[in-house]
């Protein structure tokens, strides 16, 4: 077994190989975290916490499930999970694309800041909490308190929403939204019709949106 730090150090090297395979990951944490190169990494099995965290430019594919904090704070590139992901998938991500073919559990896309997240299954409670920018697409259902205290992120859900969080409302699905969603589904290699989705976003009623509070500074 290659020690985890050796693997990650090699991935962080000045001129890393183009294609990598990680065999027998056995749920190890921080697999392929912190890559800053346009390389491809295939993980053949289940990954632990923080897989592909802080990713830049790379494509990381997990042929299995992923633990807590998948692609946390991703900056760019692409992270694709064949199975399901645990809590806080794509949390705080600034850019790039995270695709989860199965379900994502609670807090998917929490505090997302520009990342696009496509979940083919369902997401758990508190997903897109305080989401600032980017798009969360859910083909299945969303759990309680979706989009609580959301800022400017856009949420697209095809299935049922158990409940919307504070200041999150359903919004009209216009042509421009269908067009951007179709493009995103295409990029994620997901076969679905953009017109089957509903859109949710911020009602912009919380404190920070209120002009009366501008005088506090």
């Amino acid at each position, binding site marked *: 077994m290659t020690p985890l730090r050796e693997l990650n150090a090699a991935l962080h090297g000045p001129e890393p190989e183009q294609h990598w395979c990680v065999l027998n990951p*056995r749920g190890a944490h921080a697999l392929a975290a912190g890559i800053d190169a346009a390389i491809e990494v295939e993980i053949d099995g289940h990954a632990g916490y923080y897989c592909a965290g802080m990713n830049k430019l790379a494509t990381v594919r997990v042929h299995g499930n992923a633990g807590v904090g998948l692609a946390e704070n991703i900056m760019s590139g692409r992270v694709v999970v064949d199975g399901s992901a645990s809590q806080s998938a794509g949390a705080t991500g600034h850019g790039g694309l995270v695709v989860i073919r199965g379900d994502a559990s609670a807090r998917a896309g929490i505090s997302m800041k520009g990342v696009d997240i496509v979940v083919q299954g369902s997401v758990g409670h508190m997903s897109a909490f305080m989401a600032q920018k980017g798009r969360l697409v859910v083909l299945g259902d969303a759990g309680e308190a979706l989009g609580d205290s959301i800022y400017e992120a856009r949420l697209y859900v095809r299935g049922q929403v158990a409940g919307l969080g504070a200041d999150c409302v359903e919004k009209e699905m216009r042509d421009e939204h269908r067009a951007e969603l179709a493009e995103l589904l295409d990029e994620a290699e997901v076969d679905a019709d953009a017109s089957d989705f509903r859109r949710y976003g911020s009602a912009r009623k919380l404190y920070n949106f209120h002009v009366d509070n501008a005088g506090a500074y």
Partner: protein
Amino acid sequence: MCGIAGLFSKSLDVSGHLGGHLGAMLLQLSDRGPDSAGVAIYRHPAPSGSSKVSLFSPNPEQDWEAVRHELADTFGAGDPERRASHAVIVVETDADVAQAWLREHHPELRVMSAGQAIEIYKEAGSPRDFIEAFALDEMQGSHALGHTRMATESAVTTEHSHPFSTGLDLCLVHNGSLSNHNDLRRWLRREGIQFETDNDSEVAAGYLTHRLREGATLEQALEGCLEDLDGFYTFAVGTAEGFAVLRDPIACKPAVMAETDDWVAMASEYRAIAVLPGAEDATTWEPEPGRVYSWERAPV
């Protein structure tokens, strides 16, 4: 942070190596809980009319033979099976009677568990040392729970370690922390539940004991936790027939479950399940918050 693990065997092969498998799981969870470790293992049920007690003595020179003699003279008792600081004795009386007698006549000993099949072993110190000292590798059994502890709410001692016995053949392991344990402990004491430490998880164990005594099923008792306990938790509860898992309603603490034809397992992290035979092909999922999952075998 703590690590918890549960393993329920569905095959003779897994039962034959249950302790070894559980030890391998606990080793993976050492980072989550480096300061103490413990297991509850269900095996070799005592014959009907007899019961089994797990005893802990802080005295390394403990004379277990003397204890056995007294038990044998009073009720009839088998040879003590010693493991590090613990000994398991089969006593020819009800578990309640044996437990009460031991508390009265040997207050220096601690009854870790009592029942037909349950045995509890736990100790302060690293999980690796624990696994070795208690020779987990050689233990067979039908199902088992384990815990690695990183203490947050009370002291690092063997008494404060998990699993906590919650009644005959019942035990609890907990990852998390409870906020209203002082209030609950006062209330439960008035209801006649005894506590031996100031540990928050022991209160959860006492809560379950109380609900079960009042006639609730295990599932009802666990559902009561959702109402009455304030805090973070993933619980695994062992019974004579199997085990149950419950996460708090907002899923503050992690849990993964997996099942094959040969076993059902739960653990705080997947890497503890990855060490089990055939894990890569197991059905693997994250239990939903606020939902009771349970596995049981039909009583023999």
